[in-house]
């Protein structure tokens, strides 16, 4: 499959749009359907698609296994530290109000940061599981 021209050209056309779509779902989640979870899955699907067409090794060159596995706890860390940031600035844990110039903006920024945390964990988990599935010999 690695040598199949049609798959490789099609993948090269598709992958940028998949990345853009993931980012759209991520950052447009405030206005339309979507959010960190869905965007994380789409981003993971992009990496998996790449790995299927171009082989596991070349995918791991771009998205190294170590980085992907670090993303799994890092996302939870981002989420929790946004909560702690709110607490340090004099509010309850996970209350984002003090993060912005006024309460509503603070909430908006907090939501965006938290969604990034969700994205990182979800995408990292999906890709890490896929890597370890594919890395096993039969």
């Amino acid at each position, binding site marked *: 499959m690695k040598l199949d021209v049609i798959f490789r050209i099609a993948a090269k056309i598709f992958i940028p749009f998949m990345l853009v779509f993931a980012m759209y779902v991520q950052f447009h989640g*405030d206005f339309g359907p*979507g*959010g960190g979870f869905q965007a994380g899955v789409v981003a993971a699907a992009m990496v998996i698609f790449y790995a299927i067409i171009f082989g596991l090794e070349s995918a791991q060159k771009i998205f190294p296994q170590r980085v992907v596995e670090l993303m799994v706890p890092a996302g939870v860390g981002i989420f929790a530290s946004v909560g702690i940031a709110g607490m340090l600035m004099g509010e309850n844990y996970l209350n984002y109000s003090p993060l912005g110039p006024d309460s*509503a903006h603070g909430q908006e920024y907090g939501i965006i940061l938290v969604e990034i945390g969700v994205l990182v964990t979800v995408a990292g988990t*999906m890709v890490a*599981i*896929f890597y*370890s599935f594919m890395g096993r010999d039969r």
Partner: protein
Amino acid sequence: MVLLTLLAAVTLGIIRMRNLFAVVILGGIYSFLMASVMIVLDAVDVAMTEASVGAGISTVLMLGTLYLTHAWEIRPVHRDLLPMFVAVATGAALVFGTFALPPFGAADTPVNTHVAPYYLENSIPDTLVPNVVTSVLASYRGFDTLGETTVIFTAGIAVLMLLKGRRELKPGPKRRRLKR
């Protein structure tokens, strides 16, 4: 109605198939049909999750599992009367439960009168986020979502440990013997 009929047909197909490859693909089709049902019910966020996780990632992971194991299901050793009885009884109890539910979308039910109006009215003044699903998920119920993310984290770590545990051993005579 059409969607639910198709769902039933796909389920029967999954039950009758012995080729697990076909079962995985039918499972993907099931997820897409379920996503369509969610869109009909106006739950676009859930539909998106169902389509991407149910039909996308889990199909890929299932195919990966099939690659590591066999693609044909062996015949069950037990007779399937007891599982069928349990399934039918549970299904009957659930259908019986639906008779007591209010009609879909009724405005005077507890679901729509308790906190939902507060979220709908205050989402934009409180958080400037028009998609109420996002503001409830990440702000009003941020604690739940943190827990949810932790669940994904825990599940991911557990699966990684199960899959990778053996590979961490140093290659040597011991490992050779463990291998088939």
